């Protein structure tokens, strides 16, 4: 246990919404983000990991061969994390990234047009539930399509504000 109190401050402060629902940017709850690194030459863990994926939409997200993120809005205690890590020990290594990565939700009819200014991923080919690791501008993000008009970006905490400012600027055309 640390002998001093950590002060929690949100990485991104306010939401941004353009008129008529073209683009809405929303900081998402800083709940849980667990990085899963499959052991080399291991089995496909998707089936095994599904039971840990939580209740949020698309709680289990691929992040390249043998890598996943388990995400959710509710925080995880240290004991819960340890229990999960123990259960998965023979298949994968887990890294608690809950305080290291921030999620931003994009909703609206023009979000693909906004993101197309910053990423090389063909978003029309990213189906609901699918994810991609990519760049938005120079910032590395993990991108997931939650619905036809909703995309979530996950970014390293230190880059969150910079990405947010970029997204706001990219969205202004549709204000």
């Amino acid at each position, binding site marked *: 246990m640390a002998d001093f109190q950590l002060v929690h401050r949100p990485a991104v402060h306010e939401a941004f919404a353009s008129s008529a629902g073209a683009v809405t940017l929303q900081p998402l709850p800083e709940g849980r983000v667990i990085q899963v690194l499959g052991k080399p030459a291991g089995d496909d863990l998707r089936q095994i990991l599904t039971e840990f994926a939580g209740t949020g939409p698309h709680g289990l997200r691929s992040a*390249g061969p043998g*890598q996943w993120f388990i995400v959710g809005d509710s925080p995880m205690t240290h004991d819960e994390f340890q229990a999960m890590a123990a259960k998965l020990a023979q298949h994968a290594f887990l890294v608690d990234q809950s305080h290291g990565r921030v999620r931003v939700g994009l909703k609206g009819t023009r979000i693909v047009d906004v993101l197309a200014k910053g990423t*090389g*991923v063909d978003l029309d*080919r990213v189906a609901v539930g699918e994810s*991609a*690791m990519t*760049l938005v501008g120079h910032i*590395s993000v993990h991108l997931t399509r939650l619905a036809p008009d909703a995309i979530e970006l996950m970014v390293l905490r230190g880059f969150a504000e910079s990405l947010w400012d970029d997204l706001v600027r990219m969205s202004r055309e549709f204000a």
Partner: protein
Amino acid sequence: MASLVPCPHCGSRPKEEFTVKGAALPRPAPDAGEQVWMDYVYLRDNPRGRYEEFWHHTSGCRRWLVVTRDTATHEIEASRDVAFGTSPEARA
């Protein structure tokens, strides 16, 4: 340089997501001797035409790939994962 690179895991992505690490040459044996290692590390041909290079998908899936590229036209023919010997190729 080609601006779109096909990744067998991620699909077609801009070259900015990748780091290029030079010719995909067979690595000498650990005890191959100083001269062989010297050549492998420092002496490289600069061929014109079809060429295999190591590319790292740094800002994507973070896998090492072998990309077949034509050094004269910059056209990319294919890419494959280095470690997964039988993994599907991605064609440009």
